[in-house]
């Protein structure tokens, strides 16, 4: 009887090699706790601004060492004019993130980064709208920066502005920040979550303990 023998190299070659991480979810499930079944063209499907100003971002992409947790955080930080540590990504939790076909083919930067940038820029513009309406001032005199909207002698934090007005608005065709104006994107940044890795606190799949296991 002929035995099927494969070397590790052959197995990798037959699989096509490379990083392939799949996260499947039914196409109808594009909900998270905050977007409540929103379609993916709503800001709330992609990000949520908490009352204390903490921004939670939802994406079906998965971090496996390619550092997209860092690069996607940069994308959101740039458009929302926030420091990196004000942003937390929920990645690949299919109960909470919009539908995604998977993390493969180096597609995160060309596809997911623009989606999140547009959602974040839409959120920024919505915050400016909310501030202008609250203070009855011309929106062109307002600036969103570092978690606060200021202008015309007024100021309010993002969290305060978003508090009673969930970002239940469509993602808009707003202009994205030009590369020449980038302050966070396009430059090396410390790895988000790096400290947990070097201290042994980062939980890999094999480090997780299910209840009663």
């Amino acid at each position, binding site marked *: 009887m002929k035995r099927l023998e494969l070397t590790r190299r052959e197995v990798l070659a037959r699989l096509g090699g490379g990083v392939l991480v799949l996260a499947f979810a039914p196409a109808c499930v594009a909900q998270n706790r905050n977007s409540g079944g929103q379609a993916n063209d709503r800001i709330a499907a992609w990000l949520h601004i908490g009352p204390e100003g903490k921004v939670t971002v939802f994406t079906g992409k998965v971090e496996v*060492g390619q550092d997209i947790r860092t690069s996607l955080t940069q994308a959101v930080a740039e458009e929302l004019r926030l420091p990196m540590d004000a942003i937390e990504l929920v990645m690949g939790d299919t109960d909470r993130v919009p539908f995604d076909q998977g993390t493969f083919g180096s597609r995160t930067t060309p596809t997911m980064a623009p989606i999140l940038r547009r959602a974040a820029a839409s959120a920024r513009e919505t915050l400016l709208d909310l501030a202008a309406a609250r203070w009855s001032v011309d929106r062109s005199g307002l600036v969103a920066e570092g978690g606060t909207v200021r202008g015309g002698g007024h100021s309010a934090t993002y969290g305060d502005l978003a508090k009673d007005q969930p970002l239940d608005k469509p993602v808009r065709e707003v202009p994205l920040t030009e590369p020449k104006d980038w302050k966070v994107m396009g430059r090396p940044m410390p790895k988000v979550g790096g400290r947990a890795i070097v*201290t*042994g606190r980062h939980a890999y799949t094999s480090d997780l303990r299910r209840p009663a296991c």
Partner: protein
Amino acid sequence: MDAKVTLRVNGEARTIEVFPDTSLLEVLRDDLGLTGAKYGCGEGMCGACTVLVGGKPTRSCVTPAAEVKAEVVTIEGLAQGDRLHPLQQAFLEEGAMQCGYCVTGMIMNAAGLLATNAKPTTAQIKEHMEGNVCRCCTYERIVAAIERAARAEESR
């Protein structure tokens, strides 16, 4: 279970029951909840499970817990409160990780090197770290991080 052993881990005495062939790695991860040391190959060939036993880098996956007599230091015991060990700081500053699975073993093995040779040459670092495998191939930065940590130690 047929033997009770008391290990000194990160400065604390811990008593557990073990089989004669229970590995130190199993005790650390499953009994003591110290999951910083990783299970990689399970054969002592990849270095992901490296901890210090009596100051010496040791492959915990092939070390029977019942035979451990000296103090065990794991990655969880390396920082002093919030202050990271120079190696941990250097790995962060050099960005010497991608997935990071090998990093805790790398740092513990390097800690063993710097404890006996505070100013290793690049060649000595590479020789000492030879048995630690990084599937992401971050080797250049790992060597740079160890050199950076050695310089930081020197200037303290």
